[in-house]
């Protein structure tokens, strides 16, 4: 047991000597954490709108005012015809065309029915979808105010919906985003560092020198796991503090529960990195393999798109995706304030993965070929 401190000392000497890795591991995540949530917004703003107003009535002007006042749209131009508006979309100068046909005001007054036409540039599907929906909402509310003003006998809305965003009352996307970014940060740091490290020893030939010593496999693997576990924990702590002091997101649930989960989660992620490293002959290979998996883990991890809207097979896959569990637990504990029972299924899943991945890695790491 005297061997482990020797191994740890050596790993930390190497970590602190390799300034590039140290900076990438500690400073880059902090930058990401400060910049990404501010820049990467799920709110769609600055939608470029071109209007074809063929009615030119008081009512159509009111409608346009309502739209521009919402703050989501930028009125780029009034086009004389749909064709010239379409030309603007083609030239990428506009995202959305709103056509108000002639007779808009008259028909609305007399018959209480009128159509407007919206055309959306759907190349950026998200912007198109959300922009169209915003415009639809504005039109609906405009509609009801028109009905209220002009209709002699206003029909009742059968179902009126009011909603409230639970656990994130303002539906601030940052609040939903930040726990997820925390999850990704520790995954990237832990996974990449551990995967690259053992392979590097293989590349430089030092692993052979280690394998010819009476060192025990268990000590060697622990000597690799512990330093990166500590580093990833430090990164997590920095992220948590930033979330708290910069974004004002204090964990609703127990901080200790959060740490307990991350502690186990990191064992799983580091185990995965070790496993990859035992199969790879070069750092390049390990990098690509880790990149491949981490990419999929993150994209299917429920941060960018909700797991519930994935197809059935993808939802089954997310149960084996450690990042999905991490993102979920982060949100549950940080935003909802879930307790241990609330995250028990995730806890068990991650603990299982930690055991399987590390056992597999230790079995596959051989001192004797």
């Amino acid at each position: 047991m005297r061997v482990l401190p020797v191994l740890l000392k050596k790993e930390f000497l190497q970590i602190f000597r390799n300034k590039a890795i140290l900076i990438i591991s500690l400073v880059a995540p902090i930058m990401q954490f400060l910049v990404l949530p501010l820049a990467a917004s799920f709110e769609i703003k600055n939608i470029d709108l071109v209007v074809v107003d063929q009615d030119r009535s008081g009512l159509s002007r009111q409608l346009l005012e309502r739209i521009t006042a919402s703050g989501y749209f930028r009125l780029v131009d009034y086009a004389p015809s749909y064709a010239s508006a379409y030309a603007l979309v083609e030239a990428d100068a506009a995202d959305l065309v709103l056509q108000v046909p002639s007779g808009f005001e008259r028909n609305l007054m007399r018959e209480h029915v009128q159509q407007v036409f919206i055309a959306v540039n759907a190349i950026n599907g998200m912007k198109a979808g959300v922009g169209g929906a915003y415009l639809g909402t504005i039109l609906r509310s405009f509609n009801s105010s028109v009905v209220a003003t002009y209709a002699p006998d206003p029909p009742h809305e059968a179902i009126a919906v009011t909603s409230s965003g639970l656990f994130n009352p303002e539906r601030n996307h940052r609040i939903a985003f930040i726990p997820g970014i925390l999850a990704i940060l520790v995954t990237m740091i832990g996974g990449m560092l551990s995967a690259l490290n053992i392979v590097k020893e293989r590349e430089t030939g030092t692993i052979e020198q280690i394998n010819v010593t009476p060192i025990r496999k268990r000590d060697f693997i622990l000597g690799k796991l512990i330093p990166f576990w500590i580093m990833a924990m430090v990164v997590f702590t920095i992220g948590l503090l930033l979330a708290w002091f910069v974004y004002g997101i204090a964990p609703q649930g127990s901080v200790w529960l959060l740490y307990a989960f991350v502690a186990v989660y990191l064992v799983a992620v580091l185990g995965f990195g070790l496993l990859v490293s035992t199969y790879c002959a070069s750092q390049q290979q390990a990098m690509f393999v880790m990149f491949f998996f981490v990419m999929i883990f993150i994209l299917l991890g429920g941060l960018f798109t909700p797991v519930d809207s994935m197809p059935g097979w993808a939802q089954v896959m997310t149960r084996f995706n450690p990042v999905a569990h991490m993102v979920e637990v982060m949100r549950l504990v940080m935003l909802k304030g879930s307790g241990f029972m609330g995250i028990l299924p995730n806890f068990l899943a991650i603990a299982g993965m930690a055991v399987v991945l590390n056992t597999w890695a230790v079995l596959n790491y051989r001192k004797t070929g």
Partner: protein
Amino acid sequence: MSTTGTTYAIQAEGLTKRFGAFIAVNAISFQVGQGEIFGFLGANGAGKTTAMRMLCGLSRPSAGQARVAGFDVRTQTEDIKRNIGYMSQKFSLYEDLTVTENIDFFAGIYGLPKERIRRQRDELIGKLGLGKEADKLVGGLPLGWKQKLAFSVAVFHGPRIVFLDEPTGGVDPVTRRQFWDLIYEATGQGITVFVTTHYLDEAEYCDRVSIMVDGRIAALDTPAALKEQFSTDSMDAVFYQLARGARRGDA
């Protein structure tokens, strides 16, 4: 030195390694006595490194038996590892650690007590004349110094046998001579030396020499006896006569 002692440092009997259909090492048998310097020669691809890796417990034999320091290479690899030192072809100390840190690390994983490490390390650094470089990164040292350091680290924990795989590749004759002084010093302490080399002048420094051709041991004796057997006065000529018949490798 004598090979007639009752216990050998290394004993191999029909030791074989196959990779698929390729037989890298084909049923080699030999003994190395305690304290002997045993030269393990052969052309590139003859199977020297593979044989050495089996003896060090880094590679499992496909067939045959071998005992190193009295332990079985199949079942007692960890006991073997406690009793040997190894210096691979590729320089394998940590280039991003200093001379001192490398020594401390490798001595540490053999479990040597701190006090002994400190005393022996200072002695070693003095002996190698690395006083000024002790706190410099190993990566920046000249190759000759790196190799002397690697050897010294390989025997630091006082192993019974040290395996050297082409330890002097790429260094100048003066440094090679100094390196051999270190080897003689180690044998003086009773360490058995098992060394592969491509330098036939180095073969003359060995007590006995084996020459491998295509995975087999083609000749094994003292340098003097081999020269007599092939009626020549140089090891070069002995090697050439044996190795030109080789079918594999690039020799």
